[in-house]
């Protein structure tokens, strides 16, 4: 660990030295020009957080850069004689952009689902709206000609000082983003970009997580904007409008949105090229648009991706270093043991089709329950109702004395209902260790703790035991994408178990497995059930498996419970035999 920290510190020092050497090489004026690109680079880093990490694309990021620039410009003009105030006001201006972005994120991400394109379009519209406002509100913004005569930062208004300020801000912003990416928050962003539903099913409010990502990007754009005003001495409506917003997207894409430094690299490289070529090459802007399209189609990794082979080896050794030393996670807040789950007269309809028809059942003690029934009987739909993903028309679901049917999904999960999907849903681009860590954080990490990188090494006794049973789970350096289908089933099952839910819903956990793998999964389910007296509900078609697993069986048919009881009771039931001819031997 200490060696890692020393390496990181050495890298920061090297970056600072290199940045400090730039003015000596290119001269003060050119360095001052570069300083502007550094400020853009800070905003581009923020776009990387949203687009590269969390998987949604804001198209109006100039709004936050421009807003902070206007605020900073106004503050600098008003408080030129009282510079002490600026120490408070300028950071506040950057925070205002962050707060606005967070608020917009909260509003737009209130609904889950197809919010990707909506979000992009709404942010684009907001930037155009801000452009109109900046243009029309002449008394404050100076209208079309902009806010003029903004003084430089007190005592820092030489070319070389302006460069130094921008360079330090860029290093600071990079460190901030690097820290976010190392923290659980960054892992959760990457996870929800790939499979948001799965993250919700670990009890995280993904809408809030996305709003935080957007807020962070607004703050970064704000930092760039605050420093832009004194550096340029002029803030025009162009800044809040479409032009800068579009450039930021191009820079982030060309530089490599998915990597920490990619967007910054893109901003600086294209900035330098543009200032060289814009006047000489008549079709520079057109060439840039074509380059952007080519990058999206053929090189999604961008410039930074071209350097990836160099850094990968180093990362692997670092990853192995962090993987070994586990830290004990706090115990999950213990609930009273009476995890009684009652479903009363639930009715679910989609269009004219009745999916669940006054379904009623009770799970009153820890045991392994099986749901069986023909396709379309409502088995998976019942799970969807239990986890709050399918709205009910009428009826109630009570769990440990609380009504669930109106709660959002992530809060239900926090109460202690866990789920494994039919198709194994792990996060393929994350390491096995991070996949498991997400499950450990579930219902254990408090919101602010998601900022502490230490949580990535959390482990629990149950997880240790699972690692011992299935050694591949301890292989920290592999990503989940490298696992076989059977291993993924085991991984997702382990993730569901590690969350230590009181009720665990397993949707065909053995689907598509070889007999050998099936045995391993059955073994794990029975072991988990014995370990921690949880209620486990399994949807299963294979009667042989049901016979070995089930303490109690529910037969579902046409959205209701047709019969229940032990395997033998159910198999003797005439009505069950009638619908199940052939399936039940």
């Amino acid at each position, binding site marked *: 660990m200490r060696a890692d920290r020393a390496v990181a510190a050495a890298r920061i020092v090297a970056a600072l030295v290199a940045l400090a050497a730039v003015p000596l090489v290119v001269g003060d004026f050119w360095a001052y020009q570069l300083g502007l690109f550094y400020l853009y680079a800070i905003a581009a880093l923020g776009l990387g957080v949203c687009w590269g990490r969390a998987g949604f694309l804001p198209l109006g990021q100039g709004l936050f850069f421009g807003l902070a620039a206007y605020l900073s410009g106004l503050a600098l003009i008003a408080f030129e004689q009282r510079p002490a105030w600026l120490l408070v006001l300028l950071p506040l201006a950057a925070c205002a952009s962050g707060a606005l972005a967070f608020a917009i994120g909260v509003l737009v991400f209130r*609904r889950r689902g197809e919010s990707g394109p909506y979000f992009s379009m*709404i942010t684009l519209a907001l930037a155009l*709206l801000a452009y109109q406002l900046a243009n029309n509100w002449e008394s404050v913004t100076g209208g079309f000609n902009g806010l003029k005569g903004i003084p430089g930062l007190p005592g820092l208004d030489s070319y070389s000082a302006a460069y130094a300020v921008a360079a330090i801000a860029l290093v600071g912003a990079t460190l901030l983003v690097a820290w976010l990416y190392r923290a659980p928050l960054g892992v959760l962003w990457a996870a929800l970009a790939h499979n948001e539903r799965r993250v919700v099913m670990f009890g995280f409010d993904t809408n809030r997580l996305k709003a935080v990502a957007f807020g962070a990007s607004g703050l970064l754009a704000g930092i760039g904007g605050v420093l832009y005003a004194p550096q340029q001495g002029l803030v025009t409506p162009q800044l809040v409008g479409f032009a800068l917003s579009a450039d930021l997207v191009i820079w982030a894409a060309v530089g490599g949105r998915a990597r920490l430094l990619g967007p910054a690299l893109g901003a600086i490289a294209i900035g330098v090229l543009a200032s060289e070529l814009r006047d000489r090459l008549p079709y520079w802007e*057109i060439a840039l648009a*074509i380059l952007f399209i080519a990058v999206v189609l053929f090189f999604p990794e961008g410039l930074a991706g071209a350097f990836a082979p160099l850094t990968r080896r180093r990362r692997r050794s670092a990853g192995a270093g962090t993987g070994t030393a586990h830290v004990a996670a706090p115990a999950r807040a213990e609930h009273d043991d009476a995890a009684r789950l009652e479903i009363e007269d639930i009715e679910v309809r989609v269009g004219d089709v009745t999916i669940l028809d006054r379904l009623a059942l009770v799970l009153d003690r820890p045991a392994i329950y099986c749901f069986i029934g023909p396709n379309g009987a409502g088995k998976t739909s019942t799970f969807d109702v239990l986890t709050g993903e399918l709205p009910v028309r009428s009826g109630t679901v009570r769990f440990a004395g609380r009504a669930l049917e109106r709660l959002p999904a992530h809060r239900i999960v926090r109460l202690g209902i866990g789920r494994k999907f039919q198709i194994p849903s792990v996060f393929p681009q994350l390491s096995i260790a991070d996949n498991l860590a997400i499950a450990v954080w579930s219902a254990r990490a408090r919101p602010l703790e998601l900022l502490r990188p230490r949580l990535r090494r959390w482990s629990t006794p149950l997880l240790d035991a699972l690692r011992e049973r299935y050694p591949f789970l301890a292989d920290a350096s592999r990503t989940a994408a490298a696992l076989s289908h059977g291993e993924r089933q085991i991984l997702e099952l382990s993730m569901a178990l590690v969350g230590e839910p009181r009720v665990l819903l397993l949707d065909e956990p053995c689907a598509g497995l070889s007999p050998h793998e099936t045995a391993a999964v059955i073994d794990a389910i029975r072991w988990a059930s014995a370990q921690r007296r949880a209620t486990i509900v399994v949807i299963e078609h294979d009667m042989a498996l049901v016979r070995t697993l089930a303490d109690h069986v529910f037969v579902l048919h046409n959205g209701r419970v047709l019969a229940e009881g032990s395997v033998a009771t159910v198999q003797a039931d005439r009505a069950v035999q009638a619908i199940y001819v052939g399936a039940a031997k």
Partner: protein
Amino acid sequence: MDPALASLVAPALNALFGIASLAILALGLAVVLGLLGVLNLAHGELVMVGAYCAYAVQSQGLPYLAAVPLALGLCAILGWATERWLVRPLYQRPFDTLVVTWGLSLLLRKSAEAIFGLGYKSLNEPVGGTIVVLGASYPRYRLLVIGVSMLVLAALVAWYRRSRTGTRIQAMVGNPDLARAFGIPVRRYASLTFVVGTCLAGLAGVLIAPLVPVQPFMGLDYILMSFFVLVVGGLGSVAGLVTGATLIGGANSVVSALSDSTGGYLSVLVLAILFLWLRPRGLHAR
């Protein structure tokens, strides 16, 4: 003719014009998004291409109607090439189709800037003068736009519902794999659908060009307005398109009249966000 009634005719026609023009502007986007699931962010720029075609034709002294085949041809080529080389490789990554068409919108906008310059171009109405409708005089060209928009909408729906090609496209939309298994060349129909969408955008551009300032940035407004029309109205039906156009166009023009264009813009945005919360599939969900 009752003068009170006559005084209502002009506002009513204006409202009708607003709805019809917004509906025809959004139609191409609706076709591509509704049938292919691709949000074509270059839609507004294809409208712009249509408008510049009209400008080119008029500035050459050619009859205005010549703009129609020119715009349709150009937009068909652009649409075909876009679908073939930009969108088709990305059907598996739907979010990236948005990004790549956004790149195309930049490219088209910058190309227009390079060819025609940044300045505004204004066109003459090809059918000038006014006509008296129910006692109120109204510009002929606007009436023409209303008529043509309704006609295009009706023709498209009839074609989609009745023709063999339309039926096959419906099959493709419903279940592409099954359609392929039945021997329907799904790729060709996806391409055709995309081209129909871009041609509709170009046609809308020709229609509205004489009524608006033609400039490289005009597309931004149209893509946003069209998108919000679809958010409010929902995909997949003419009723949705018309309702969306009515609500969005209505909110924009009423609030703009009461305050200013910024207020109108804001009201459209608020409306769209409200719908996103309360009715994420719009008023007429498929």
